[in-house]
């Protein structure tokens, strides 16, 4: 038996949002009588944590702690239109809509506070902890709780806002393909180290080091969740997954989690994640969409590492032990 070791690198970029744009998302924000903020959406949380991120974005924009924000999604009787959760668009599109709605609500909130404090709204700021202060004179302040009560019961103001984000649709020019596919791109570079058993074709991914540039890590722990899980999926795509193991032959497609192969908890590569943040010009607080691209660079990095280990190329996914063994035998025959 010989275990061969190799390493490979890959670098990629990925567009944020629906290709060619034209994918709107709306948000509504309003305050309750006691100064909590309701964000109404029809956006879908697939598990990536869209609700939490929308809450943090709204909270930052209004100037309250995140636990003062409630996310109401996704009910088409109440939530305004969202194109959907796909194409790494949720944070970017819905986030921008929430910012716009929250800004409008914040403006009303500051106007009411200004009336209560008898100053100009432009002289006010929030402390992020639930209070509105006069700039330069923080002893003069009012709580957002009291501002909301005043707006509702005294001044008859609706602390609310509407948000809509739309990147106008681009139409590719027929002959040249000139088009505007996306407004911002995330980036990644992955280095993978593998061991290949040259008698069985089995590959063990020892380590992946993933560098991701994602615009802005709005919640670093949630970014980590997604990037770690994505990295696992990338390795899974590289070495394990397909519904048609004998493509283009349709036979022997897996119908359960025993037959549909993915790395188990005993197959995990040592995974390192490093995040860079180059804020995007039109992202909510600079964020781009990391959800899809984080599963891409591992695939070619692993493929290149396998070549580095055994000197034969597998240009067909997934890179199964069988494909490796066949390639090694062909190499030996030549």
């Amino acid at each position, binding site marked *: 038996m010989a275990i061969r070791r190799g390493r490979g690198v890959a670098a990629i970029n990925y567009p944020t949002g629906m290709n060619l744009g034209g994918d709107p998302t709306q948000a509504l924000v309003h305050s309750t009588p006691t100064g909590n903020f309701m964000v109404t959406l029809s956006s879908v949380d697939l598990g990536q944590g869209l609700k939490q991120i929308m809450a943090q974005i709204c909270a930052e924009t209004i100037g309250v702690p995140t636990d003062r924000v409630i996310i109401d999604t996704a009910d088409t009787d109440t939530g305004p239109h969202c194109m959907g959760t796909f194409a790494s668009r949720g944070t970017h599109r819905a986030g921008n809509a929430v910012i716009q709605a929250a800004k409008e609500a914040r403006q009303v909130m500051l106007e009411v506070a200004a009336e209560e404090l008898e100053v100009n709204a432009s002289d006010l700021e929030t402390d992020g902890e639930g209070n509105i202060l006069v700039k330069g004179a923080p002893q003069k302040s009012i709580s957002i709780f009291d501002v909301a009560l005043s707006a509702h019961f005294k001044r008859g103001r609706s602390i609310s806002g509407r948000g809509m984000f739309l990147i106008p649709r681009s139409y590719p020019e027929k002959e040249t393909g000139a088009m505007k596919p996306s407004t911002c791109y995330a980036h990644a570079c992955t280095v993978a180290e593998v061991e290949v058993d040259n*008698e069985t074709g089995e590959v063990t991914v020892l380590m992946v080091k993933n560098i991701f540039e994602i615009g802005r890590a709005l919640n670093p722990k949630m970014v980590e969740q997604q990037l770690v899980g994505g990295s696992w999926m990338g390795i899974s795509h590289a070495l394990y997954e397909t519904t048609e193991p004998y493509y283009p032959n349709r036979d022997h497609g897996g119908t359960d989690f025993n037959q549909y192969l993915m*790395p188990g908890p005993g197959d995990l590569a040592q995974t390192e994640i490093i995040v860079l943040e180059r804020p995007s010009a039109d992202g909510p607080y600079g964020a781009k969409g990391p959800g899809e691209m984080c599963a891409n660079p591992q695939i070619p990095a692993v493929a290149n590492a396998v070549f580095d280990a055994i000197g034969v190329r597998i240009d067909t996914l997934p890179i199964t032990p069988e494909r490796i*063994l066949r390639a090694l035998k062909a190499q030996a025959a030549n």
Partner: protein
Amino acid sequence: MALALQTFATVSDANAALKAAGTRYLGGGTLVVRAANEGDISVTGLVRSTDPTLSGITVSGGKVRIGASVTMAAIARHPELGAIAKAARAVGGPAIRNMATVGGNLFAPAPYGDFAVALLALDASVGTNDGEMPIETFLAGRDGNPAIVTSVSFTLPKADSFRFLKVSRVKPKGVSVLSIAAVPEQAGDGTVSSARIALGCMADRPMRACAAEKALIGQKLDPDGIAAALATAGEGTSPITDPIASAWYRTEVLPVHLGRLLLT
């Protein structure tokens, strides 16, 4: 029609009920309840038995009897079955092992049935109310065998002479690319005096690697000594092709894994 479950105090009553068309025996449920869930409407009734002969493990004088309802988990944790525990642990994840029974494993089609591979290498006999039969006879006729399996019996192998390997793509749990159980007995000089080798996934049910067994006799378990056995390991096999691996791949890696197992 709903699936009716009938419970009987004795195996013979359960055997009688099992004669009704569409009726299947319910062991741990990992095969038959799954089939019903997946829309196998040929299953119209289920039968089980609480007969005490089906449960319990007895070890005496080097002989082991395991009731057919005994689970993989119970075998894996039994203090006197340490020698074969790894074969029981090779089946499924923890929840499956708490449910899957010895009796059921005998019926599990490839790529399942890893414990049956071990039983084949152990030269077990399979008990029904009609008596005992060699496991090879049982496996050959299992598709048409309506009698409830009540037990399996075998001689406990000498410490360290039982070797077992399950190769799977997914770790630590995953179904078999192939599984191998081997019981090589060695004479004082280290040469093999007898050997039984059983293979999983190399046919639609567990099978013996008879040619390899023969080739080991009189040989030492070193690279030269096992070479002839490895060369003949694939004789008589007709491996399955499934989503896990092709027959070609299974054939290619069988000698590799057998070699590694024999040299451990």
